[in-house]
Structure formats: C-alpha cells, structure tokens
C-alpha cells in the first residue's frame, strides 16, 4: 500500500467505466460527461498510465465533511473507486486519525438512496428546467440560505450570491454546536475559539462538553486525550446529567440535575476561593457570584454532594495547570472561562486560537439559534425563497418552532442534497448534490488546525451518478445567473478554486498546485489573535427548573444529529454508552424506573409540553434520577432505507425554554412526563451485561501505581 502521490488529473484519464452508468472524464477539467460522451475515453488496463498498477491502491488527500470539524483525509483509490478513508497525517486537526463518522463517509458517498436527478415538485427534471425555475423564482426579494457550517470558497461564493440577490440572510444551522462556549470565549476573553491544550493539562473539568464525542473537533481532542492519559496522567472530571462518551471516560463523573452545571461551576469557584484561597483580581461581579453560591446551595440546586464538589476543587488545585471547559449553557461556559482565569490556566492550557487572515473564508459556525430565527422569520413571511444545503430543518426543529408551517410560508424552496430527507420532501426544487468524495472545495477547520491552514477537498472518484453536481459548481452557476461580478471567467468550480488557491499561495505553477493537492492543505496568512483581559461579566445562574423529570437529548458520535442515520455502519455500530443498535431508547435511572415499575425494554411514553414520543427504556446509573436521556439522530421518516427506526427526541424539546440569552435551544430544559406504554421488547444491544463476572477482562490499577511505573516504563 504505497502512498504514491501522483497527479490527480492524469489519474482521472484512466478511470474505467464504473458501474451504474458512472460518468467518465478523460479531460483535464472534471466537468460532468455522460456515459456516451465518455465511451471513446475508455482506457484498457492493458495499456494503463505508467503509475497505475491494477490491484495497487493510490492515496489522495481530501477533507472530511461528516461533521463541522473538517478533518484531513486520505482516500484509497483503486481501479477508479474509493475504497477506504484514513486520516491525513499532515493535518494538524486530526493527525492521521478519523472517527467512525469519518470512516462512514464512504457510505454517504456510495449510499443506495442518493438523489440522482433534479426534481421539480417531486418529479424528475433536467438541470436546465430546474435552474430556469430557480432563476425565475429566486432571483430577487429576500432569498435566504440555510446551511450547516460552511467555510472556504463555498462560503465566499455563497456570500456573493446572497449579496447579489438582495437582502437575504444566511442561516447556519447546527443542532450540535459549541455556541455557548464560543459566545463565552468572546465575552470573557475576546476570543471565540481559544486553543485548548488538553495534552498539557493535568486535570480537565468539563461541564457538559462532550469533547471526546461530538464537541467542536472530537478527533483533535481525542488525539490530545491520548497524550493527556500518558504519564503523568491527567484527571478528567465530568459534570453532566447523563453520561456522554467523555463522561464514560471520566475519573470522576458527577451527575448534576439537568441544567444546573452552572451552579456546580459556581460552587467549585466558591470552594477555590474559600478553601484554597484563590482570587479574581479586578472581577468583583464574578467574585460575588462565586461567593454567594455555597456548597450547600449547590447540593440543593444541582443535587451534587459537598464531598464531590470538594473533590473537584481539590483536584483542580492539586493538578495544575488544569482546564475547565463547558458547553452545558451560556452561564456554565462563562463561569468555566472565569474559572480558567482564576486557576491561572489562561496562557498555559488555554491560548489564543488559530485562524486565517482571510476572514471571508473563515467558518460560519452553525447554531440552533439560526434555526429558531429562520422559523420565526419564515413564519412571519419575511423569506421569499430559500436554498437549503447541508441542513435538515424539518428533522431537527422542535415542534414548538413549527418548521412545517414555516417552510410552507416560504414561497420557493430549493434543496441541494445528496440524499432525500424530511426537508427535501418539503422543497419545490431538489438539486442532486455530488457527495463529499466527488466534490471540490476548501475548508477552514474551526478548530485544531495550524494557523492559516486551509484544507483542500478534492474528488476521490468520478461522480457515481452522472447528473449530480458539486456544491461549488451549483453556487457558481447560481452566482453567475444572479450577476455576481467576475464569475463568468470560470467554466466550473474547479477552475475557480484553482485560480483562487493559486492566488492565495502566490503561485500559478502546476507543481505548486500539485503540492497542494498532495498535501490536502495549504498555508496562507494567519491572523494573530490575542486574549483581551478577562471581562468581568455577570455570572448569574438563573434557576429555571430544577425539580421534576427533564428530558435530555444528546448527540452521540455516530448518528450525530441524525445526518448519519442513513449509514448502515453507523446504525450497526453500537452506541458507546448503552451499546444499543438500530433503534432509540430512553436512559433512565434505576430509581426512576423503580418508581414507575419499569424494567429494561419496557416502552414508555415521554410527554413534554411540545409533544410525545414512545420508546424503550434502558435502565442504568449513568443518568441523574431527574433526567431522562434520549439520544438524538433517529426517528427519520424519509431518509433512505436504513434510517426509518427509533424516535426523534428533538421534536419534543421545548423550543421556547432554554438559554434565551442567545436564543440557543437547550436540549436539557424540557420537563417531561413518563408513562409506561405497556409493551416490552428486548432492546437489541451488543451485550446485555454490564459486569465482567470476575473475569479479568478490563483490569484496572490505581493511579499511584501507574505513576510509579510511569505508564509501564
């Protein structure tokens, strides 16, 4: 498996005719050609290009788009087909590693339920008709875009299109986001995305930030976590209502009542001040907030014992430098930032973030605030037309937002998607999008990259379906017809991108371009960022509701927010915590179960103010007795053959509660009623036991012993 890095365009010349009418290109420009056009370009393996050896895989660099982290990838290509993805070792984001979602990008690409032709009102149509209709209906007025996280030149073209069409707005929707953390960073330190140094920290306190699972850039964090666990070993403390992957790896796992992580953080600060004599200079607001939250109050509000709280504070002091991170709420994130200042972590484990100077390329981070705003604006009739790509608002929106009505109120809706989903069904025009492995693009990782580095996404394979187009190409076409200046010079997005990248690297030379392709990334000017002094922001904790059962919906690495539910690999990959597959479940505490007389596998009906779902219970002690945790991602109705299972807890999340300080929907703040639905069926899991039955399977040793042997040296 030699990693021969060679010219990609020559490689394209020798692509054989793939299955299912795959298109061929024998030309330099990877524009789409039909089967008939490609026929004369079929090359026999009897006379291949000199570097193509049948049976030997060749690796090409690209970028993973399975989650907003934008990891660098290497794709193994053999006989014109991409077979396997690995992490790009040159990428600072993931350092050669990939998570399971990244591995499953292959299934997003080869998915049997891809959209293969444009649709107008559900009927197959030609690109010309579809584009003509778009020109007619979406050329003026309020033309909005709804996307996931976008960055790089796609964002540039998108912004240009928005500017040309008028007064539209770009809604970036990510249900799984780090909005609380980035807002707090901006407010307290003046940097939305500070760099975290897990590997240098001796202790990490996380308040609901699932950094190993889904938070910001999990592969980056997991890479650091590996070093964090090397001797001298760091201590991981997790405070959350229901165990996440990070919690499952925590040395101290503290169950807090849903929505009370901020109180726990204040309590920790209180102990740091009173017990350990730490102080905050020039931050009287924060100081008084800490002082007023005594451990006894924390116990009352969050249900966290004083002993646990003391242990957290002691660990943070004894294991310096430490790091406090939070994503549970805006309040918790702010307090975490201030705790970092108090503990003296700023500058050690928390340093200014890395970014690029070219702001238009910077990632537009998604949030659920945008989802709520879109729903409000659409329902108010403020949006005339919308382009939706990389987002599935009809699936992720709580019923309280009434996304169906909101979408109905939008006059003209265009979905640009690889697969049918709940949103494409509601759209007037559906444009078939090339998969991430067939498309060109540039991506600026929101986190973890080297300063000034842009990841390049290049096709690893000719399009599987002849009639799909890349997002860049579609944006270019739309931009041209909207009259964006300077786009007419480019025949396709490849040409645009190459020109733009050449300009950024300051070289038009073929060789330099090839070096970019080989590396999968290039460096451009970095912006130097610095922290501003800690702002003394208000650190209030408003007690919303801390009694009664609350619904907690979490994302797990795997199905994520539901976008990967159409992958059979990820459906069959057991959930890290419950080990369940192919269906939803509700995690409840044995006490809750006992009070309702429930046993494993019983169906329950979960009712909130916004609606009800029925699913099976999984009983274990990794949830707070006041929480009912239903992981999100399942419950699709129109997302291909593999996604129709389970329930979607996002629908019953109360959209109007939560962290309205920033209009963010908080997934832990809905009161829920739980009733037995009568039926019982065994929840299909990898294993039905939690115990090792005295076998020496996972042996454990105390940390002191680990320290003595320095990890085994």
């Amino acid at each position, binding site marked *: 498996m030699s990693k021969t890095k060679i010219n990609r365009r020559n490689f394209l010349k020798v692509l054989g005719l793939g299955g299912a009418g795959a298109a061929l290109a024998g030309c330099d420009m990877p524009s789409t050609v039909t089967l008939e056009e490609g026929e004369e370009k079929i090359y026999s393996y009897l006379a291949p290009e000199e570097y193509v050896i049948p049976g030997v895989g060749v690796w090409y660099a690209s970028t993973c788009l399975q989650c907003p982290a934008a990891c660098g990838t290497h794709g193994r290509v053999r006989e014109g087909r991409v077979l396997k993805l690995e992490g790009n070792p040159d990428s600072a984001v993931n350092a050669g590693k990939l998570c399971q979602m990244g591995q499953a990008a292959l299934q997003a690409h080869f*998915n*049997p339920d891809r959209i293969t032709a444009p649709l107008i009102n559900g009927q197959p149509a030609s690109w010309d008709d579809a584009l003509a209709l778009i020109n007619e209906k979406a050329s003026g007025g309020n033309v909005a875009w709804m996307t996931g996280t976008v960055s790089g030149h796609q964002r540039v073209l998108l912004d240009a299109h928005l500017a040309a069409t008028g007064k539209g707005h770009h809604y970036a929707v990510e249900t799984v986001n780090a909005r609380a953390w980035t807002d707090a960073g901006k407010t307290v330190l003046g940097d939305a995305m500070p760099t975290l140094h897990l590997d240098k920290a001796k202790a990490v306190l996380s308040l609901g930030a699932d950094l190993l699972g889904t938070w910001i850039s999990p*592969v980056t964090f997991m890479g650091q976590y*590996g070093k964090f666990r090397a001797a001298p070993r760091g201590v991981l403390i997790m405070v959350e209502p229901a165990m996440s992957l990070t919690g499952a790896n925590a*040395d101290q796992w503290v169950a807090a009542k849903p929505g009370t992580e901020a109180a726990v953080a204040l309590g920790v600060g209180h102990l740091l001040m009173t017990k350990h004599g730490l102080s905050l200079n020039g931050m009287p607001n924060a100081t008084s907030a800490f002082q007023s939250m005594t451990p006894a109050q924390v116990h009352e509000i969050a249900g966290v014992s004083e002993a646990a709280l003391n242990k957290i504070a002691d660990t943070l002091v004894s294991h310096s430098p430490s790091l406090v991170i939070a994503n549970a709420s805006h309040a918790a994130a702010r307090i975490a930032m201030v705790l970092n200042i108090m503990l003296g972590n700023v500058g050690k484990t928390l340093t200014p973030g890395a970014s690029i100077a070219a702001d238009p390329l910077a990632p537009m981070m998604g949030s659920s605030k945008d989802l709520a705003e879109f729903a409000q604006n659409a329902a108010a009739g403020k949006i005339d037309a919308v382009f939706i790509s990389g987002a599935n608002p009809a699936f992720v929106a709580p019923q309280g937002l009434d996304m169906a009505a909101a979408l109905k109120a939008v006059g003209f809706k265009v979905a640009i998607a690889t697969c049918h989903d709940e949103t494409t069904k509601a759209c007037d025009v559906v444009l078939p999008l090339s998969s991430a492995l067939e498309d060109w693009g540039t991506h600026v990782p929101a986190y973890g990259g080297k300063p000034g580095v842009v990841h390049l996404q290049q096709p690893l394979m000719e399009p599987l379906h002849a009639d799909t187009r890349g997002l860049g190409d579609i944006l270019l076409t739309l931009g041209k017809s909207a009259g964006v200046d300077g786009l007419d010079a480019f025949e396709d997005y490849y040409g645009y991108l190459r020109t733009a990248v050449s300009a950024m690297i300051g070289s038009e030379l073929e060789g330099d371009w090839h070096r970019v392709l080989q590396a999968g990334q290039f460096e451009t000017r970095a912006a130097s960022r610095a922290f501003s002094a800690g702002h003394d922001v208000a650190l209030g904790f408003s007690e919303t509701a801390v009694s009664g059962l609350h619904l907690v919906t979490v994302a797990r690495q795997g199905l994520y927010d539901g976008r990967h539910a159409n992958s059979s690999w990820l459906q069959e990959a*057991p959930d890290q915590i419950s080990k369940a597959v192919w269906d939803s479940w509700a995690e409840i505490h044995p006490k809750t179960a006992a009070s309702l007389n429930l046993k494993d596998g019983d169906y329950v009906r979960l009712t909130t103010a916004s609606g009800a779902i029925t699913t099976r219970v999984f009983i274990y002690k990794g949830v707070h007795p006041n929480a009912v945790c239903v992981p999100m991602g399942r419950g699709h109705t129109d997302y291909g053959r593999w996604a129709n299972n389970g329930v979607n807890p996002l629908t019953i999340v109360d959209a109007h509660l939560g962290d309205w300080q920033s209009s963010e929907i908080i997934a832990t703040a809905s009161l829920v009623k739980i009733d037995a639905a009568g039926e019982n069926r065994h929840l299909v899991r990898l294993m039905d036991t939690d115990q090792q039955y005295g076998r020496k399977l996972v042996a454990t040793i105390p940390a002191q012993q680990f320290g003595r*042997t320095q*990890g*085994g040296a």
Partner: protein
Amino acid sequence: MSSLLGNIFKGWSDYTKGNEEGGHHDYEHMYAMVIDLDMCTGCNACSTACYAENNLATVGEEYFGARQAMHWMRIERYFDEPNVGEAEADTQSRGASFLPMMCQHCNAAPCEPVCPVAATYHTPDGLNAQIYNRCIGSRYCANNCPFRVRYFNFYDHQETAWPAPMEQQLNPDISVRSKGVMEKCTFCIQRTRAARNTAKNEGRAIRDGEIQTACQQTCPTSAILFGDLLDETSAVHQAWKRHQVQLGKYAQNKTNPELRGYRIFEELNVDTKVLYLERVREV
C-alpha cells in the same frame, strides 16, 4: 500419477513435520498487538474502520438481536462491579471500562486443532488465519473460542449489506464471504501481505510501523500498537518487554508486578498475542 502421489506424500510429510514441532511452523514474523485500555475511549472508530476495510456485512436489527452480527472488532463496555449493585451509590461515580475485543491470534489457538478440515491454521507470520474456501462451516472453532470472536455467515449478506452501488466500496484485496463460512479478525492480513510484497520488491525487510491495521490507523487516541514481536526493535516488542509479558507462558513472572501489561484469559494457556494495558483508576 507420480506427481499426484508426490504431492500427497509431500503434503503428508509437511503435516507431520508441523506436528513434530508442536504444531508450530518456523515463524518468519509474529504479529502482535498492544492495546492501552487507559487510552481507549470506546469511541468505536476502530470497529467502523474494520467494517470499511474488511468488507464486513451489516446485518440489521433483527439479526443483530439474534446475535448474528459480524463485528470482528467489538467494543465492549463494562461498569465497575462494586458500583453497579451498590445500594448507597445513586449514580455512577466514574466512567465505564471499554474493551476492544477481536481475534487474539492465540499461538496455541483452541480453534485450530478442532477444525475438521484445517481451514483455520497458523501462518508463518504467526497469524491465526481462516481459509474461507476450505471452511465447511462446522463451527467447532467458534465453540472452542473462549473470546467468542469468530463470526459465522449465517446468511448471504451481499444483497442486503451492499445494495448497488455500495458493492463498489468493497475492498478487492479480500473476499466477500459467502453463506456458511466462518470469519474473524485477520490482523488486516491484506495489509501485511502488501507490505511484505513491497519489502520483497525493494529487497529489504519490513520496517516497524510500515504495517498498520485499519483499527490502529484510525484510532483517534493511538491506543493500538501493532507490529512484529520477533523484531526486537519494534515498538510492540519493546512494549511486551517493558511490561514483562512473554509468549508461551500462562503465568507471567514479573519482577515488577505493578506493570500494566496482561493478556486476557492467560490462565487458559492459549497464548494470546494481544497485550492489554490496564485501565487506570483515580482512587
């Protein structure tokens, strides 16, 4: 006829020779693994990478529920025992324990002697290999595997696991197993073979780290180490040595008993080649 007899006699003498040497060949390599359970986060990336690399079929909820899944690499999750049944403990006080479990490539593999047709055997690379073409599906090997890491093709999965165009993703380096044969982790034998051929073509020995198994390559925390135990410079050899674990023993005599290395079910004397490093607990 003479060549037929000659082959038969040669096959027979090879066979008896193997037996005289305790059933072991002269090993050229001895591929082994080290998994640091303290670094393993249980994220499942290795398992999915294995599905992608080794053409593993997904079976769906019904068959998974019937325990007929084909996950060569499975991540088991345990909770600490005192914590589970403790009446006072309201909730877990610490995280879980994760265990990546795949074929341990035992040197004294219990699956090998029981196969009626010798479809599972030891390669000169020290791997426990499964010859799909030879397997008749008696499933005795799986019954005799204490780790339960052998997976049987109870069905033909081609149609359901890889509907068109997904068959294009199948790794052509290895076969798609048909109904009725046993399969299991091969330590990515296709990668081992490719590296061996490359090294041979270039007239050199295989370098340490040149072969990465799919699970190792993707593991986000780098908890998995793979290499040749016979190569004294290899990282795997060093780790085994550092943890004072030796092959061929069912009880290790460590001068420093605090070292973390151990093998699962070592007392069964199956001589596994996966060294696990204990998970560390803050007390």
